């Protein structure tokens, strides 16, 4: 039923938060950083919902160029402005899990607890949004 006992050909594991385009050139990176700074300008006049969207775009762009910490920072800001369960949410949970795994490998209990707690908070966000809690 679940493929028990079958011989499986090993497939390469999917890494959900890896950038979609495998190779990002320096030019691409510069272009994306320019986009980010343009987006940051838009924040000044944006309302809460727009800010959440802009931060989500900024976070996803940082993620594409492999700047995980800045991606986390932007995606957290997005959820602080408005809780949503879009790509930003999914990527942030994945990033926390990546950081959690790194902390476990480094035997860094303090960071480990921080990211486990952040993952707990993400579960709460998911519950809240699904139940319509503002």
């Amino acid at each position, binding site marked *: *039923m*679940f*493929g028990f006992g079958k011989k499986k050909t090993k497939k390469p*594991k*999917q*890494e*959900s*938060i890896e950038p979609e385009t495998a190779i990002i050139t320096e030019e691409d990176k510069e272009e994306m950083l320019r986009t980010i700074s343009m987006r940051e300008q838009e924040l000044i006049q944006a309302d809460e919902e727009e800010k959440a969207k802009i931060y989500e775009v900024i976070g996803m762009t940082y993620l594409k160029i492999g700047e995980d910490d800045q991606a986390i920072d932007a995606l957290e800001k997005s959820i602080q402005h408005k809780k949503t*369960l*879009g790509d930003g*949410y*999914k990527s942030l*949970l*994945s990033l926390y*899990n*990546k950081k*959690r*795994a790194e902390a*476990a*490998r480094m*035997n860094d*209990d303090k960071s*480990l*607890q921080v990211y*486990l*707690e952040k*993952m707990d908070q*993400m*579960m*709460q966000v*998911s*519950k809240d*949004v*699904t*139940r*319509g*809690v503002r």
Partner: protein
Amino acid sequence: MSVINFIIENILTQASVTIALIAMLGLILQKKSAGQVISGSLKTMLGFMVLVAGSSIIVGSLTYFGKIFAEGFHMQGIVPSIEAINGQAMNELGLGRDIALTFLAIFVFNIIIARFTKWKYIFLTGQAILWMATMTTVFGYFAGLRGITLILVGGFIGAVFAVAMPAIAQPFVRKITGSDDIALGHFCTVGYVFEAGVAKVFGEKGDKKKSVEDLKLPAQLEFLQDTYLSVMVIMVPLYIITAAFAGAEFASTLSGDTHYLMFAFLQAIQFVVGVYVLLSGVRLLLGEIVPAFRGIAMRLVPNAKPALDCPVLFPFSPNAVIVGFITTTIGCVIAMFVLPVFGLAMILPGMLTAFFAGGTAGIFGNLVGGRRGAVIGGIAHGFFITLLPALLVTTFNSMGFVNTTATDVDTVTAALLYAWLIGPLLKAF
């Protein structure tokens, strides 16, 4: 010697002390300061006492409900609540110490299994582990196990479930999330796989499969915004209607000077208050223990896959959550009326289980069988998660539990494993 005997017989037998000592162990292993160890241990002990207080409130309300239901409908009406089962087992049955030690044993065995086998799942939902520890302890005790055997068997079985359930769900979770790095840690997985199976048989197939995600549905379930309000929404009408059926003459014998319908209303609120207090206790109780032990688990199994609570899947299929909740509720209501026909107790629907288990099951049903799979699978799931707890009612009654049964079907499956396999085997030898 008499001092040691005094400590063993009068202090260590107290469940609250055992639980505080488990928290203390976790905090010491985390190399916390003396102040943090003391405050953490005391908070854990306080949590246990709050939980016990909540349980007493629930028992008071359920005892009343049992009486009016029996009078009004001439059958037993069972409120499904794993919290109430946990509270009564910890308090009224005096199994608190064994449950706490089994809880610890599940963590330890989970780490051992994940460390030394290819199943690298670490179950992170602390509350669910507490419910599993409750059920393995209660049914292990009923099967005749005592002392260290009760704890080790319960710990091992609980840990096997803590690894096996995420492992069974993972092929689905991989497809839902498009990733293999996070797992599902929710003890309702047997129900999810059941729904997926039904959806496979009765659902849409191949190119005809249409996802519920393509439909336009109301985005949120606003009436479920508050956990306690959503429990109240069910319990208040349930108590008042039951009291009305029991009649003024009978119900007034229980309500003293208060009008019998008003008394029923207040008792329904009391039930919610009990759940509120009990869950506050659980949060306090687990607040120190869970971070300590899951930190240890993650460091001992650095390549672990964290098994997270069911909302981890909600963002990937939000419409299926709504369809799953509605269809599971329908299935629960059908089962409520059908099961008594077959001589089983009437199991009243639980809104929270229908939401969390039903919603997640809906994702599985939609994945496997599209819209039709989600609908037919969801109704079947609602029936299934009402039937399994109904099978435990006789045992719960004989053990002294008041008008309640368990909810999360994996914990019920573990209990049935004891009742149908381990218990008879122990009696045979």
